């Protein structure tokens, strides 16, 4: 009988030991406390879709300092699922977390979470019109959401639904402002640049471009440049050769179209330098496809033909996102590697000399320059 009792006792001990999953340890840790002033670059790491492992990295080029997971380490909260962009406004950083339907607001020096804008559908980017009005672009809302940055509340929306029964239109991606107008590219199964009157918050016009415009910039001559990837092979929406289009935003007319000859090409990430006289973009293909001479391309805004060789060849890397530091004009390009491990960021001078390389978070997808 004693033996039985001993056995039972040991069994109970094992039971107690077995109940030891300590979930609280993931949140109760010594949080990072910093106050990082001055010039820096935030790298927004998308993370894997449906993993909720997006993150934010910090890089100070002067001090060659890299801090990863700054949002989680400072706030003991995960950033969310698929962080797509960040913008700084009034010393606050607005980090858009697409598949979590929210925008986190942080102090850009301490990285502390100070607020959030929630209740969004599938936000992509946020743009500030004035102190009390910001626009949030969205992949699925068929509307541009209007928020008040002061109260962090949704105050309205601008419908961009075209009631097309064939495709889910319009989505909104990026915005470029000129005067009282905002130009918005509709990327997903679409070919429109929408024109919004920021005074009336109404959709007033649109410009048709090559299929799937994914990024836009305004040059020194106030010309709007639009990069279209052309869609994908087999799409019911059709596929165009990808193209770079110049639009006069005043007349809303297409002035010039540079077509990329290779149907496999899906260029992305159109950027412009501080002077507004050189365009940069990533030339590559969707995963699975392949193009010759993939890499970072540069093009003067007055060029007559597309360049045939990259400024920075992709080589063995998988270039994913591109950014130009408005202060130094340095080129930041990210490498998503295998998409399941921490990616890399390479920093080049504007003359393609590599200045630095850093390891950041999973799928580094955009840059925000402080």
């Amino acid at each position, binding site marked *: 009988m004693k033996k039985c009792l001993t056995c039972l006792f040991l069994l109970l001990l094992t039971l107690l030991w077995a109940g030891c*999953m300590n979930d609280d340890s993931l949140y109760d840790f010594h949080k990072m406390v910093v106050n990082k002033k001055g010039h820096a670059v935030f790298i927004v790491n998308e993370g894997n879709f449906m993993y909720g492992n997006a993150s934010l990295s910090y890089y100070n080029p002067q001090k060659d300092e890299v801090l990863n*997971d700054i949002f989680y380490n400072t706030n003991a909260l995960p950033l*969310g699922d698929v962080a797509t962009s960040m913008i700084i406004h009034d010393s606050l950083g607005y980090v858009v977390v697409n598949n*979590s339907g929210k925008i986190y607001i942080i102090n850009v020096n301490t990285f502390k979470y100070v607020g959030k804008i929630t209740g969004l559908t599938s*936000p992509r980017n946020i743009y500030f019109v004035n102190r009390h009005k910001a626009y949030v672009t969205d992949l699925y809302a068929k509307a541009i959401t209007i928020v008040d940055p002061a109260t962090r509340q949704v105050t309205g929306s601008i419908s961009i639904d075209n009631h097309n029964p064939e495709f889910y239109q319009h989505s909104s991606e990026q915005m470029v402002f000129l005067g009282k107008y905002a130009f918005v590219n509709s990327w997903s199964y679409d070919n429109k640049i929408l024109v919004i009157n920021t005074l009336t918050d109404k959709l007033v016009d649109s410009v048709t471009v090559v299929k799937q415009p994914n990024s836009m910039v305004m040059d020194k001559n106030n010309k709007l440049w639009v990069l279209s990837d052309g869609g994908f092979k087999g799409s*019911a929406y059709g596929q165009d050769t990808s193209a770079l289009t110049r639009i006069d935003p005043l007349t809303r007319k297409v002035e010039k179209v540079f077509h990329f000859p290779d149907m496999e090409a899906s260029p992305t990430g159109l950027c412009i330098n501080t002077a507004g006289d050189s365009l940069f973009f990533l030339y590559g293909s969707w*995963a699975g496809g392949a193009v010759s001479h993939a890499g970072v391309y540069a093009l003067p805004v007055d060029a007559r033909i597309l360049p045939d060789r990259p400024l920075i060849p992709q080589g063995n890397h998988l270039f994913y996102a591109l950014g130009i530091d408005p202060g130094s004009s340095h080129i930041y390009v990210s490498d998503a590697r295998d998409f*399941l491990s921490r990616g890399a960021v390479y920093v080049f001078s504007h003359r393609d000399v590599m200045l630095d390389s850093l390891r950041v978070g999973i*799928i580094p997808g955009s840059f925000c320059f402080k």
Partner: protein
Amino acid sequence: MKIPALFIGLFITLGLQAQMLPDTVSIPEVEVRSKVDVAGAGLVQHPVDTLVMMQEAEASLSDLLAAHTSVFIKSEGRGALATASFRGTDASHTQVYWNGMDIQSPMLGQVDFSQIPVFLMDKVVLHPGAGSVVDGSGGLGGSIDLASSPAWTQKLQINGMAALGSWLTFNNYLGVKAGTQHFQTSTRLYYNRSKNDFPFYNKNVADIDPKTGEYIFPLQRNEHADYLLDGLLQGFAFRFRKKYLLQLNYWYQHSDRSLPRLNTYEGDDHANLSRQNQQTHRATAQLTRFGKKGRLDVNLGFQAENMIFQVQNQVGGRGYYDAVYSDSRTLGSYNKLEYSYRWNKKTLLKASYRFNYVHVNTYDSVNRTGYDQFRRRHALVASWQQYLGSRFSTMALLRKEWINNTSLPLIPYFGFNWDVDEKAKLVLHGNITRNYHYPSLNDLYWQPGGNPALKPEEGVASELGIGWQPKIKKVSLETSLSLFYNNITNWILWVPSPLGYWSPENIQHVVARGFEVKVNLNFSIRKIYFFLKSSYAFTKSTNEGDAGKWGTASVGKQIPYVPVHSGNFMGEVRWKGFFLTWVNTSYSERFTTSSNDLNLRDRLYPYFMNDLYAGKKFPLKKGNLSLQLKIYNLFNETYRSVLGRPMPGRNYLLMFTFRL
């Protein structure tokens, strides 16, 4: 009458350990003359204990496998997608057969084990590693054979269960079977549903208290996670002209469930609403002709599935718009003709021809993307099982397959069993095979991103093991140890591209090796019966790919979501009809990145789950009743199974079972 029955019995016994599970029909006249079991030569298989299956009858197959086998189950949450993987491989490397028919989705290339009720199965047999090629190719990790083939009866038998669980969970099952000497019928009906809205403190989102600045974590419910699973399984079996056995089975299932959002979601309540509705029809016909020395099997299988996946968003007060409405229809025909010839007591030869045809038509009416593709697969298989002496048996197998017009390289298999000590039941076994896993139709044709240039994944699997069942007075002890090595090249991985398109590529070389230990112990002390079952697996499954492509950080690292250590334990005590069962399932840390980064945010810390069952069985004149209470997550622990998904705290299921 007795002679044909004897043949039937002998062949059934020979078939028990090897081939298609339909062979395992039990017929009362079974009589075994030969000690030589040619059909088991060199094969490793782990049947799940039928008593355990009865105890877990109301559960899903994913719950059964997680708690009682060394198969790793990756579960997205209660009632949600659950996939199974063997020995450090991917879920797509686990082939699943029901009554000999491949039930892996040709579209997705995997099976959702949360959608298979244990109640429908009479046998669940695992074939880890090389042994899977006997049933079919593609199981680089292994295969799972499921059989709905109840024991032969000549009377009316009714059994069923009614279970009521936490969060409006209802699991109801009814089975009726009856028969004569020549005919059997078995009907099983089931209806399961759950609101599944368990509460949880969400520590992945927080509001800031305006006064104190402290976080306020919301107490939320697991919304949009309800599920419904119902269906029926009808089986008939006929024995005629003394040497024929015909078995017919039809299984219809309807599943409707919400797919919850991640716990970091704070978007619009009326956005990102996902739902999946699935209707599946499966039918098998198996005709066996028993001859003096030969046996002919003709198996026909049919599967039709219609799956609708929908994502909705409310748009500006104008109602709900579909962002995705994907209607996928799958048709499959699975056929086998096999002849087994028993040359003598020590030699068994088999040859078979198999032909499978699958057709997938999938279309998203929102984005107007989809594909309409088919696949024909022919296979010729020949095997030779041979006893050398009375204790050493071997099996050699060759499989040749053609997919559409592509010829796959030959798949050879060799295995052996050596009865080292017959008294102590000390058996040494080993096997090696080459294997191929052809990409799923989604891998090849999904729009956008499908990659028609994908190569098949190629694996070489090998195993060496020992089993020992020593005779000890009043104690039943069963132990086994297996070492395995699995080398897989051209591993397929889906990777995203900018702006959200995903595409699969052959980019990984994986080596999985390790060992598995199993110990089962049964004994009694003064009419108190103890049943202890335990297993442990050590699995090192590492990425051996090109460092140039992967970066040095990922090469040599453990594959994401594969635990190095995994184990489970079941201890049961029975006394005068009362029983108390403790089930523990444990995994070591799983990594979510290929570089095995250690950060708290993405940490899937070691998992120790404890469940407790208690009940009493009441014997009746004919049959029995039982009442059982199951307590899941006994210690009410907050834990993670995958990232971003809440898991339920302590929950209960009260179950009434009857067998008349």
